[in-house]
């Protein structure tokens, strides 16, 4: 096998700045997905039939279609609806929506296994429902679901590479461009894989640290 170490090494100086694009997209999508997932979770507990029904349909649609298709739908669909979005914006929204669905499913599982006692204690003290959500339920829930949540966040990072199909110049697309000029696709793609892997390694390590730090507060 012929592997050109030099071409492999040369790919990194171009891929690293591109990784910044992936990171920015990922952080934006993570933030939106966490907010979206949390809002969906709270809405689903309201017991309003129409609302929970609509959310249910959305969940099964997002879970039942490939994220690549969803990205295309956002890229071509939102401008058609009159929303003038850059490819990056459309991509962030597509990934964020997809991920909110998975996060709300993780949160629902976490909620189901949670002890209702601390909530009752808050009710007994006269704490309002809204404050119970923000101060009692959600903090405990986030601590509880941290491992699957970190897993979902790494999925977001991997999803950013898919935005290469809607002209976003991120790590994968940069690697393809390098390959087009060097005719060394394997080297460039392996380098791209390593760069994305490094991003996710950092995220999962950070997740593990937070988990350790909050271990005492899991109860």
């Amino acid at each position, binding site marked *: 096998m012929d592997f050109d170490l030099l071409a492999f090494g040369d790919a990194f100086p171009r891929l690293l700045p591109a990784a910044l694009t992936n990171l920015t997209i990922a952080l934006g999508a993570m933030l939106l997905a966490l907010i979206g997932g949390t809002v969906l979770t709270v809405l689903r507990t309201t017991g309003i039939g129409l609302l929970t029904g609509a959310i249910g349909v959305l969940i099964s649609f997002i879970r039942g279609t490939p994220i690549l298709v969803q990205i295309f739908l956002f890229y071509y669909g939102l401008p058609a609806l009159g929303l003038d979005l850059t490819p990056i914006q459309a991509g962030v929204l597509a990934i964020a929506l997809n991920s909110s669905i998975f996060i709300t499913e993780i949160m629902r599982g976490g909620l189901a296994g949670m*002890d209702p*006692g*601390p909530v*009752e*204690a*808050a*009710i*007994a*003290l*006269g*704490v*309002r*429902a809204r*404050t119970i959500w923000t*101060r*009692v339920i959600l*903090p*405990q829930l986030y*601590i509880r679901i941290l491992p699957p949540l970190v897993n979902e966040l790494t999925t977001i990072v991997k999803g950013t590479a898919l935005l290469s199909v809607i002209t976003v110049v991120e790590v994968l697309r940069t690697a393809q461009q390098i390959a087009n000029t060097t005719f060394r696709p394997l080297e460039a793609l392996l380098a791209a894989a390593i760069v994305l892997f490094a991003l996710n390694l950092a995220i999962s390590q950070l997740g593990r640290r937070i988990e350790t730090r*909050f271990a*005492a*507060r*899991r*109860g």
Partner: protein
Amino acid sequence: MTHPLLKVSNLAKSFGTMTALRDISFEVAAGEVVCIIGPSGCGKSTLLRCINYLTFPDGGFVEVDGTHIGREPGRDGKVRMQSHKRIDQLRPMMGFVFQQFNLWPHMTVLENIARGPIKVQRRPREEVERQARALLARFGLAGKEDAYPSALSGGQKQRVAIARALAMEPRLMLFDEPTSALDPEIVKEVLLFLRELADSGMTMVIVTHEIGFARHVADRVIFLDGGLVAEQGPARQVLGDPQNPRLREFLAQIHEVAAPADLSTPSH
């Protein structure tokens, strides 16, 4: 005194076809300690939870110091249900202590105690923290301020839970089997502590299986059976000379199972 501190009238609650409370009426005077006893499933816990509307009763009324909570008779004779907001406002008049402590695991001991007064009563943090530290010192928990509940023993958790309820400066305290989740050797510690609280003049309604405790600490004992008050009266009378055959049977069973915790020795 013109009216009792707690007045429960004709309280009723069903879960589907299962009737938990049929028709419960009793009163508790300020400073009184009342123990509620009865066999499992007799509605003791439901009764306590209905008093502060953790569970909404289907019928009857609860008045604390003359103020209705939850269901309220209107001037036209119709019963009106108060808004959740109003019920939330009234709940802090009653402190509630749970069998499973129900501390907030993600908050330190100090925060567990201070959050209620700060968030609900909008009292200044500085004053609340001073009060919380004083409560912890009084409860033998000085130095545990920054610990998380997971680092505490069962007895310590229950004392923190009691401190959390007391920090709201309630008019009365409701205890739902406060020692049932504790290791046997810790039960006595918490019971002695409850006795001290009773001696300090706090009005207390305690659902308990600790007959020895009820005998020594309660002013009055209420025996629930089948969702009704089957017998009530001064502790010595109800426990020493029970009239109701079900109560006699119940007391006999309890004595067979476990000797009551010895509370005849004062704690200090």
